[in-house]
Protein backbone atom coordinates (compact mmCIF):
# COMPACT_ATOMS: atom_id res chain seq x y z
CA UNK A 1 0.00 0.00 0.00
CA UNK A 2 1.14 3.54 -0.71
CA UNK A 3 -0.22 6.91 0.30
CA UNK A 4 0.33 10.62 0.66
CA UNK A 5 -0.99 13.52 2.72
CA UNK A 6 -0.32 17.18 2.00
CA UNK A 7 -0.89 20.71 3.24
CA UNK A 8 -0.65 23.33 0.52
CA UNK A 9 0.27 27.02 0.65
CA UNK A 10 -3.41 27.98 0.93
CA UNK A 11 -3.85 25.79 3.99
CA UNK A 12 -5.78 23.04 2.23
CA UNK A 13 -5.32 19.40 3.21
CA UNK A 14 -5.67 16.25 1.10
CA UNK A 15 -5.02 12.52 1.41
CA UNK A 16 -4.70 9.64 -1.06
CA UNK A 17 -4.04 5.90 -0.81
CA UNK A 18 -3.49 3.14 -3.38
CA UNK A 19 -2.95 -0.59 -3.01
CA UNK A 20 -2.83 -4.03 -4.52
CA UNK A 21 -4.48 -5.47 -1.43
CA UNK A 22 -3.21 -8.66 0.20
CA UNK A 23 -1.27 -11.55 -1.29
CA UNK A 24 -3.39 -14.59 -2.13
CA UNK A 25 -6.68 -12.78 -1.54
CA UNK A 26 -9.91 -14.25 -2.94
CA UNK A 27 -13.55 -13.48 -3.50
CA UNK A 28 -13.06 -9.86 -4.43
CA UNK A 29 -11.78 -8.99 -0.99
CA UNK A 30 -11.36 -5.24 -0.46
CA UNK A 31 -9.42 -3.72 2.41
CA UNK A 32 -9.38 -0.26 3.93
CA UNK A 33 -7.46 1.64 1.26
CA UNK A 34 -10.41 2.62 -0.93
CA UNK A 35 -12.79 3.01 2.02
CA UNK A 36 -13.19 6.68 2.87
CA UNK A 37 -12.90 7.06 6.64
CA UNK A 38 -10.93 3.83 7.05
CA UNK A 39 -7.82 4.03 4.84
CA UNK A 40 -8.18 7.63 3.69
CA UNK A 41 -9.76 10.74 5.16
CA UNK A 42 -9.27 14.50 5.03
CA UNK A 43 -11.12 17.54 6.32
CA UNK A 44 -10.13 21.12 7.11
CA UNK A 45 -8.09 20.09 10.18
CA UNK A 46 -6.54 16.73 9.41
CA UNK A 47 -5.55 14.35 6.61
CA UNK A 48 -4.71 10.65 7.01
CA UNK A 49 -3.56 7.79 4.79
CA UNK A 50 -3.29 4.31 6.31
CA UNK A 51 -1.51 1.04 5.64
CA UNK A 52 -2.16 -2.11 7.56
CA UNK A 53 -4.34 -5.12 8.09
CA UNK A 54 -7.34 -3.69 6.28
CA UNK A 55 -10.15 -5.52 8.03
CA UNK A 56 -9.15 -3.99 11.37
CA UNK A 57 -8.66 -0.54 9.89
CA UNK A 58 -12.19 -0.70 8.47
CA UNK A 59 -13.69 -1.85 11.78
CA UNK A 60 -11.94 0.97 13.64
CA UNK A 61 -12.64 3.59 10.95
CA UNK A 62 -9.03 4.54 11.54
CA UNK A 63 -8.57 7.59 9.35
CA UNK A 64 -11.81 9.22 10.45
CA UNK A 65 -11.24 8.30 14.09
CA UNK A 66 -7.92 10.15 14.10
CA UNK A 67 -9.45 13.24 12.51
CA UNK A 68 -12.47 13.10 14.86
CA UNK A 69 -10.16 12.98 17.89
CA UNK A 70 -8.45 16.11 16.55
CA UNK A 71 -11.67 17.93 15.66
CA UNK A 72 -14.04 16.97 18.48
CA UNK A 73 -11.64 15.89 21.19
CA UNK A 74 -9.15 18.68 20.60
CA UNK A 75 -6.36 16.12 20.78
CA UNK A 76 -2.98 16.93 19.27
CA UNK A 77 -2.56 15.10 15.96
CA UNK A 78 0.35 13.00 17.20
CA UNK A 79 -1.59 11.92 20.30
CA UNK A 80 -4.66 11.02 18.26
CA UNK A 81 -2.72 8.98 15.71
CA UNK A 82 -0.60 7.26 18.34
CA UNK A 83 -3.65 6.25 20.37
CA UNK A 84 -5.38 4.70 17.38
CA UNK A 85 -2.31 2.91 15.95
CA UNK A 86 -0.57 1.88 19.16
CA UNK A 87 -3.65 1.11 21.27
CA UNK A 88 -6.92 0.72 19.35
CA UNK A 89 -5.66 -1.39 16.44
CA UNK A 90 -3.44 -3.77 18.47
CA UNK A 91 -6.28 -4.24 20.96
CA UNK A 92 -8.45 -5.49 18.09
CA UNK A 93 -5.68 -7.80 16.87
CA UNK A 94 -4.50 -5.81 13.86
CA UNK A 95 -1.35 -3.94 12.94
CA UNK A 96 -0.07 -1.29 10.56
CA UNK A 97 0.50 2.44 10.49
CA UNK A 98 -0.63 5.83 9.23
CA UNK A 99 0.76 9.09 7.97
CA UNK A 100 -1.14 12.15 9.14
CA UNK A 101 -0.87 15.90 8.89
CA UNK A 102 -2.84 18.78 10.40
CA UNK A 103 -3.68 22.31 9.34
CA UNK A 104 -0.68 23.67 11.26
CA UNK A 105 1.69 21.45 9.30
CA UNK A 106 2.36 18.98 12.10
CA UNK A 107 3.32 15.58 10.70
CA UNK A 108 3.13 12.22 12.44
CA UNK A 109 3.91 8.74 11.10
CA UNK A 110 3.18 6.11 13.79
CA UNK A 111 3.26 2.36 13.06
CA UNK A 112 3.31 -0.77 15.19
CA UNK A 113 5.21 -3.05 12.79
CA UNK A 114 8.95 -3.55 12.22
CA UNK A 115 8.98 -0.69 9.80
CA UNK A 116 7.05 1.48 7.39
CA UNK A 117 8.43 2.82 4.13
CA UNK A 118 8.00 6.54 4.66
CA UNK A 119 9.15 10.03 3.77
CA UNK A 120 8.20 13.58 4.60
CA UNK A 121 9.05 17.20 3.96
CA UNK A 122 8.60 19.24 7.12
CA UNK A 123 7.59 22.87 7.61
CA UNK A 124 11.22 23.97 7.26
CA UNK A 125 11.60 22.17 3.96
CA UNK A 126 13.71 19.38 5.48
CA UNK A 127 13.41 16.10 3.58
CA UNK A 128 13.49 12.74 5.29
CA UNK A 129 13.09 9.08 4.29
CA UNK A 130 13.12 6.06 6.59
CA UNK A 131 12.15 2.41 6.65
CA UNK A 132 12.68 0.60 9.95
CA UNK A 133 11.49 1.82 13.33
CA UNK A 134 15.04 1.98 14.64
Amino acid at each position, binding site marked *: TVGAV*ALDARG*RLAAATSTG*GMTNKRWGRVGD*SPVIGAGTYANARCAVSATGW*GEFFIRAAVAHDICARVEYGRQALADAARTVIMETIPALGGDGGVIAIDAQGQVT*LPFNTDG*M*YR*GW*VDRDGGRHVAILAD
Partner: protein
Amino acid sequence: TRPVLAIHGGAGVIRSTLTPEIEASVKADLRRALDAGYGVLEAGGSAVDAVARAVVALEDSPHFNAGKGAVFTHDGRNELDASIMDGSTRRAGAIAGVTRVRNPVLLARAVMERSPHVMLIGEGAEAFGRSIEGIDFVEPSYFHTDVRWRQLREAIEKESRHEPSAQGRAIHYG
Protein backbone atom coordinates in the same frame (compact mmCIF):
# COMPACT_ATOMS: atom_id res chain seq x y z
CA THR B 1 1.19 28.48 5.06
CA ARG B 2 4.41 26.51 4.55
CA PRO B 3 3.60 23.42 2.47
CA VAL B 4 4.12 20.02 4.06
CA LEU B 5 4.01 16.54 2.55
CA ALA B 6 4.26 13.01 3.92
CA ILE B 7 4.22 9.71 2.02
CA HIS B 8 4.26 6.01 2.83
CA GLY B 9 5.01 2.86 0.89
CA GLY B 10 3.40 0.39 3.27
CA ALA B 11 4.00 -0.96 6.75
CA GLY B 12 4.65 -4.56 5.69
CA VAL B 13 8.41 -4.20 5.90
CA ILE B 14 10.14 -7.57 6.20
CA ARG B 15 13.41 -6.81 7.92
CA SER B 16 15.13 -10.03 6.81
CA THR B 17 14.61 -9.26 3.11
CA LEU B 18 15.93 -5.71 3.33
CA THR B 19 19.36 -5.97 1.69
CA PRO B 20 21.50 -2.81 1.36
CA GLU B 21 20.78 -2.78 -2.37
CA ILE B 22 17.03 -3.01 -1.90
CA GLU B 23 17.11 -0.40 0.86
CA ALA B 24 18.99 2.06 -1.35
CA SER B 25 16.62 1.49 -4.25
CA VAL B 26 13.52 1.84 -2.08
CA LYS B 27 14.80 5.05 -0.53
CA ALA B 28 15.58 6.46 -3.98
CA ASP B 29 12.00 5.79 -5.07
CA LEU B 30 10.65 7.35 -1.87
CA ARG B 31 12.74 10.47 -2.55
CA ARG B 32 11.46 10.52 -6.12
CA ALA B 33 7.87 10.46 -4.88
CA LEU B 34 8.62 13.18 -2.32
CA ASP B 35 10.19 15.36 -5.01
CA ALA B 36 7.22 14.81 -7.32
CA GLY B 37 4.63 15.75 -4.71
CA TYR B 38 6.54 18.54 -3.04
CA GLY B 39 7.44 20.04 -6.41
CA VAL B 40 3.73 20.60 -6.95
CA LEU B 41 3.40 22.34 -3.59
CA GLU B 42 6.49 24.51 -4.16
CA ALA B 43 5.01 25.64 -7.45
CA GLY B 44 1.83 26.74 -5.68
CA GLY B 45 -0.19 23.67 -6.61
CA SER B 46 -2.99 22.24 -4.53
CA ALA B 47 -2.77 19.57 -1.88
CA VAL B 48 -4.94 17.33 -4.07
CA ASP B 49 -2.52 17.74 -6.98
CA ALA B 50 0.42 16.99 -4.67
CA VAL B 51 -0.93 13.78 -3.17
CA ALA B 52 -2.02 12.52 -6.58
CA ARG B 53 1.40 13.20 -8.06
CA ALA B 54 3.23 11.56 -5.16
CA VAL B 55 1.02 8.46 -5.25
CA VAL B 56 1.46 8.12 -9.02
CA ALA B 57 5.23 8.04 -8.45
CA LEU B 58 4.81 5.32 -5.82
CA GLU B 59 2.43 3.34 -8.04
CA ASP B 60 5.01 3.42 -10.82
CA SER B 61 7.72 1.96 -8.55
CA PRO B 62 7.95 -1.87 -8.49
CA HIS B 63 8.97 -1.78 -4.82
CA PHE B 64 5.57 -1.02 -3.36
CA ASN B 65 2.26 -2.86 -3.28
CA ALA B 66 0.32 -0.57 -5.60
CA GLY B 67 0.27 -0.18 -9.36
CA LYS B 68 3.34 -1.88 -10.83
CA GLY B 69 4.55 -4.32 -8.20
CA ALA B 70 1.12 -4.97 -6.69
CA VAL B 71 0.62 -8.31 -4.98
CA PHE B 72 -1.27 -11.15 -6.66
CA THR B 73 -4.64 -12.58 -5.80
CA HIS B 74 -5.09 -16.32 -5.35
CA ASP B 75 -6.05 -16.50 -9.03
CA GLY B 76 -2.83 -14.80 -10.11
CA ARG B 77 -4.39 -11.44 -10.90
CA ASN B 78 -3.59 -7.93 -9.74
CA GLU B 79 -6.67 -6.19 -8.33
CA LEU B 80 -6.09 -2.55 -7.51
CA ASP B 81 -7.89 -0.18 -5.14
CA ALA B 82 -7.37 3.55 -4.50
CA SER B 83 -8.97 6.59 -2.94
CA ILE B 84 -8.45 10.33 -2.58
CA MET B 85 -10.09 13.05 -0.49
CA ASP B 86 -9.97 16.83 -0.62
CA GLY B 87 -10.11 18.13 2.94
CA SER B 88 -11.20 21.63 1.97
CA THR B 89 -14.40 20.43 0.29
CA ARG B 90 -14.74 16.88 1.69
CA ARG B 91 -15.16 15.62 -1.83
CA ALA B 92 -13.88 12.09 -2.18
CA GLY B 93 -13.38 9.43 -4.83
CA ALA B 94 -12.49 5.75 -4.70
CA ILE B 95 -12.20 2.71 -6.96
CA ALA B 96 -11.77 -0.96 -6.18
CA GLY B 97 -11.00 -4.16 -8.02
CA VAL B 98 -9.65 -2.68 -11.25
CA THR B 99 -7.13 -4.70 -13.25
CA ARG B 100 -6.06 -2.56 -16.20
CA VAL B 101 -5.72 1.00 -14.91
CA ARG B 102 -2.07 2.00 -14.76
CA ASN B 103 -2.52 4.60 -12.01
CA PRO B 104 -5.59 3.82 -9.91
CA VAL B 105 -5.29 7.02 -7.87
CA LEU B 106 -5.98 9.05 -11.01
CA LEU B 107 -9.16 7.09 -11.62
CA ALA B 108 -10.18 7.67 -7.99
CA ARG B 109 -9.60 11.37 -8.55
CA ALA B 110 -11.73 11.25 -11.68
CA VAL B 111 -14.54 9.64 -9.67
CA MET B 112 -14.23 12.53 -7.19
CA GLU B 113 -14.11 15.30 -9.75
CA ARG B 114 -16.02 13.95 -12.75
CA SER B 115 -18.83 11.90 -11.26
CA PRO B 116 -21.54 12.39 -8.63
CA HIS B 117 -20.36 9.20 -6.89
CA VAL B 118 -17.76 8.30 -4.27
CA MET B 119 -16.86 4.68 -5.09
CA LEU B 120 -16.92 2.66 -8.30
CA ILE B 121 -15.77 -0.95 -8.57
CA GLY B 122 -14.56 -3.51 -11.10
CA GLU B 123 -15.65 -3.42 -14.72
CA GLY B 124 -17.92 -0.45 -14.12
CA ALA B 125 -15.05 1.60 -12.74
CA GLU B 126 -12.95 0.72 -15.77
CA ALA B 127 -15.78 1.60 -18.16
CA PHE B 128 -16.03 4.97 -16.45
CA GLY B 129 -12.26 5.37 -16.72
CA ARG B 130 -12.35 4.78 -20.46
CA SER B 131 -14.59 7.82 -20.78
CA ILE B 132 -12.03 10.03 -19.03
CA GLU B 133 -9.13 11.58 -20.91
CA GLY B 134 -5.80 10.97 -19.22
CA ILE B 135 -6.59 7.59 -17.66
CA ASP B 136 -4.04 5.15 -19.08
CA PHE B 137 -4.98 1.51 -19.56
CA VAL B 138 -2.35 -1.22 -19.67
CA GLU B 139 -2.23 -4.98 -20.14
CA PRO B 140 -2.50 -6.79 -16.79
CA SER B 141 1.04 -8.11 -17.34
CA TYR B 142 2.31 -4.55 -16.75
CA PHE B 143 1.78 -5.00 -13.01
CA HIS B 144 3.72 -8.30 -12.78
CA THR B 145 6.97 -8.53 -10.83
CA ASP B 146 8.83 -11.76 -10.14
CA VAL B 147 9.08 -10.97 -6.42
CA ARG B 148 5.30 -10.70 -6.02
CA TRP B 149 4.72 -13.85 -8.09
CA ARG B 150 7.15 -15.76 -5.89
CA GLN B 151 5.36 -14.47 -2.78
CA LEU B 152 2.06 -15.78 -4.14
CA ARG B 153 3.51 -19.23 -4.87
CA GLU B 154 4.98 -19.38 -1.37
CA ALA B 155 1.69 -18.31 0.19
CA ILE B 156 -0.26 -20.95 -1.73
CA GLU B 157 2.26 -23.66 -0.82
CA LYS B 158 2.09 -22.71 2.85
CA GLU B 159 -1.67 -22.61 2.70
CA SER B 160 -1.80 -26.11 1.19
CA ARG B 161 0.26 -27.36 4.13
CA HIS B 162 -1.93 -25.44 6.58
CA GLU B 163 1.10 -23.45 7.72
CA PRO B 164 1.18 -19.77 8.58
CA SER B 165 2.43 -17.52 5.81
CA ALA B 166 6.19 -17.24 5.50
CA GLN B 167 5.68 -13.51 5.60
CA GLY B 168 3.70 -13.59 8.79
CA ARG B 169 1.25 -10.78 9.12
CA ALA B 170 2.94 -8.80 6.38
CA ILE B 171 0.90 -10.86 3.92
CA HIS B 172 -2.15 -8.92 4.94
CA TYR B 173 -0.95 -5.70 3.46
CA GLY B 174 1.43 -7.04 0.88
